């Protein structure tokens, strides 16, 4: 599609968007003027941002798709946001988000409540939250797209080989973590979206729109709902302007868009609209790190590393070293980033600076990251899993191997026995209905996020040797 066509098409729908969206948009966001995010005030010794790493690229495609004067761009650097509490009682904690997200997922939740970053700072931990290299505020290599655009008419094959595909979370977040689309092989336009646990316990007493297929095989799952905020129990969790499908009147001008039918994405199941309008989705950004180059790693199998496992691991290792030691917590897709960071630290001869590695829902693969259990002999290691996730063989294997070498390693699964269960006595596994029932993969933006972090912090307290506390120098008030 030509850009000018794009424009013209867009015009017709946007008038409707702007006029319509106005009416209801206030009900979506929880504004801080109406509702406090933090559980309590915080006093901050230091805060700010910086960037680590990056490499220069000199290209005639830095500005646009017509080759022009050579310009330089810096690619692969990593955005870091930090807060330091008045009394630091811990090594710095570096938190890395997963695929399709940025650091914003730990800086306030989809519920408009305190995030993991606030909470760890409150617990005396200097906290560093990154946007992965090539994503969000870290930027990406736009010249790859410009160059592809330049080649597309003369050498389409070369252009297509050059141009990356941008993935990341979409409404797929729904089927990955929050619910299902039934029957199988349907999508949001021809299937029915149902919540995990439906039709169990909606708080308004009404039957849920459909039945979670897991209820058949795992009936215990049908006694509770997930922890991601949703209507009707949390009215602000859904953007009403999006639920009412404003901004996509047919013919939509946003590329090839499936027009709504009667104002619904699927008229047979109008509640799909609501489940497609969660505030939680707005945290998502494209995985633009796919524009960055990959690299090779002789000790890895396979030896070719993609961009994701090239740049952020390098930048994280630089950050750990620059801070003089830190604990790193990864999530999901950044699990293997964390493993590759361990390899880079080993190559740098700085493995001792990693004071602990916490892998939330992903990681642990030593073969692809060129690591061995031996690397973790002196690094406390935690594999951490929420509900709805099966036991990971690679995680269990690594934890067992580290323990076998005399190291410190644990595999905490929130649906398995452990001190985090409190008075709950079971059952565990598929039939688990204890205090963490309903926790999903995206546990940091859910309503139970702080109780989950408590389990992690408890493990840190028991397993990581911390430095002497330091107090903030209060020689002035900043003016």
């Amino acid at each position: 599609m030509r850009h000018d066509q794009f424009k013209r098409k867009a015009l017709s729908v946007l008038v409707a968007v702007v006029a319509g969206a106005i009416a209801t948009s206030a009900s979506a966001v929880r504004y801080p003027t109406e509702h406090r995010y933090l559980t309590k005030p915080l006093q901050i010794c230091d805060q700010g941002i910086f960037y680590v790493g990056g490499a220069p690229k000199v290209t005639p495609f830095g500005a646009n798709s017509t080759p022009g004067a050579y310009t330089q761009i810096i690619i692969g650097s990593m955005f870091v946001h930090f807060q330091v509490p008045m009394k630091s009682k811990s090594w710095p904690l570096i938190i890395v988000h997963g695929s399709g997200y940025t650091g914003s997922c730990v800086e306030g939740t989809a519920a408009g409540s305190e995030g993991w970053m606030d909470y760890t700072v409150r617990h005396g931990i200097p906290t560093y939250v990154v946007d992965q290299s090539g994503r969000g505020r870290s930027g990406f290599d736009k010249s790859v797209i410009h160059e592809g655009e330049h080649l597309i008419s003369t050498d389409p094959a070369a252009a297509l080989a050059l141009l990356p595909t941008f993935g990341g979370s979409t409404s797929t977040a729904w089927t990955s973590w929050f619910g299902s689309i039934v029957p199988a092989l349907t999508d949001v336009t021809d299937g029915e979206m149902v919540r995990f646990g439906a039709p169990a316990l909606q708080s308004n007493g009404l039957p849920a729109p459909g039945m979670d297929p897991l209820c058949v095989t795992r009936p215990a799952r049908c006694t509770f709902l997930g922890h991601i905020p949703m209507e009707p129990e949390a009215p602000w969790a859904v953007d009403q302007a999006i639920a009412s499908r404003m901004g996509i009147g047919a013919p939509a001008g946003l590329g090839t868009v499936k027009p709504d039918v009667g104002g619904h994405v699927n008229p047979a199941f109008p509640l799909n609209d609501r489940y497609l309008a969660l505030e939680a989705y707005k945290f998502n950004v494209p995985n633009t790190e796919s524009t960055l180059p990959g690299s090779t790693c002789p000790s890895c199998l396979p030896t070719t590393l993609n961009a994701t496992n090239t740049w952020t691991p390098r930048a994280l290792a630089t950050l750990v070293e620059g801070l003089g030691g830190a604990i790193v917590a990864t999530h999901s897709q950044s699990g293997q980033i964390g493993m590759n960071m361990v390899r880079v630290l080993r190559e740098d001869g700085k493995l001792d600076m990693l004071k602990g590695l916490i892998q939330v829902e992903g990681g642990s693969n030593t073969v692809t990251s060129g690591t061995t259990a031996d690397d973790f002999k002196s690094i406390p290691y935690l594999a951490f899993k929420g509900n709805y996730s099966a036991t990971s063989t690679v995680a269990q294997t690594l934890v067992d191997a580290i323990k076998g070498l005399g190291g410190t390693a644990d595999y905490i699964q929130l649906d398995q026995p452990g001190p985090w269960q409190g008075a709950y006595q079971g059952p565990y596994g598929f039939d688990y209905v204890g205090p963490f029932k309903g926790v999903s993969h995206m546990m940091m933006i859910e309503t139970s996020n702080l109780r989950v972090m408590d389990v992690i912090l408890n493990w840190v307290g028991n397993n990581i040797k911390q430095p002497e506390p330091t107090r903030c120098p209060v020689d002035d008030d900043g003016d």
Partner: protein
Amino acid sequence: MRRDQLIKKSISVLSAAVLVSFAATALATVYPTDKRHLTGPLRICDQGSFFVGGVPKVTQYANSVTPSSYQELIITQMYVQFQMPPNARRWPLIMVHGGGYSGSCLESTPDGREGWYSRSVRRGLATYVVDQAGRGRSGFDRSFINEAIATGNLAGFPNLGNTSSSGIWTAWFGFIVPAGSDIITGTMIQRGDAGDPTCASDPFHCAHTVQVIPPVPHSVDPSIKARVGAIGPAPNPANDTYLALEHYKYGLPNTNVTLPNSTCSTCNPTTINGADTWSGRDLATLVEGLKGGIVATHSQSGSVGHHMVRYLKEDDAAGKCGAAGACLAMLKGLITIDGACSFANTGLTAADFANIPYLVFRGWYPSPISNGCDATVAAIKAAGGTADFIKLDDPSFGTRFQGVTHMMMMSTKSLEVFDEILKWADKNIRNPRTGDSCEEGSE
């Protein structure tokens, strides 16, 4: 260059990069473990982030360049981060970055000092910093690019901006001489260096910048200066230092160009680009959601701020805020920092600002972006409103701000510059402390 070549090239350089870069990076980044960014501790009553706005798009190109099952993307939403001090003033300050940047440019300077965001909180303002819709943490419409690739038709695809390292250099910090050369064939010089082509015609402004450029410590990444990990041809070695500024790492692509345009019948021209359309709309939503605020824009977001005013007016016309004019009345001040202020482009009139204090603020170097704002300021004054145009090269400032460029929030004079803006706000916008001690739930 083919992608496979790029990978091949990068492979050969990256092993070198990995080996070498760690040795020298400590000089570039200002780690908080070495030097505190803040000038002193801060008490925070509340903080967090949220998103405003957004529209749904159902597409087969969400994650793939071949059509797959339909998925929904939410596009055009705007990321907002905020901090609120105890006993905050009545009206918050909303700050908007310019083209090629994100809100990060307001959080810390490249040499690791307190940014405008923290400073604003320290001065008692609840402060909201956004990433413009379609940029940074706000995401963008990737399906637009995926679909263009799928159909093999990228002709006319919008470019993602020219804020390259060397582009930032020539836009604000210096020149590449001789004229017509580039970083490979020419030499980068700072403003005021011998050979500054503007010195002959404008000797008054022939001076060094006070940006974060050497010899300021931490201003240069030594591994980038040494071309470690470099991809592509080598520039003139004389340029290596100026091509390695930490400042450039704040730059990011203008992916807001993937968002759809709109029309505005009261504007001239009537076609409104994606940035003005969506960030303007989202800012108006934010001002209304907060039930009042002061908005400060920079550079490219100057027109975004003015379109926000238009949306507030349109919301009034639709009766959104109750009483007539109640939406517009929620805007307690508009501060345009080195940006455009055309009323014609944005469908506004001077009368719209009869009760909204209006400031245009410009660095020491005259900037073509804001030079035309004199007429706007004069028109508001003539209509009985409060409007000022503060230029840092005004003789009344003496040499205090000599050399402050467009990117003033990241300069070595950043906090003094910001204090001038706040001084104007204190004088012209009634904004008392609320007395909220923030004691609910003690620390």
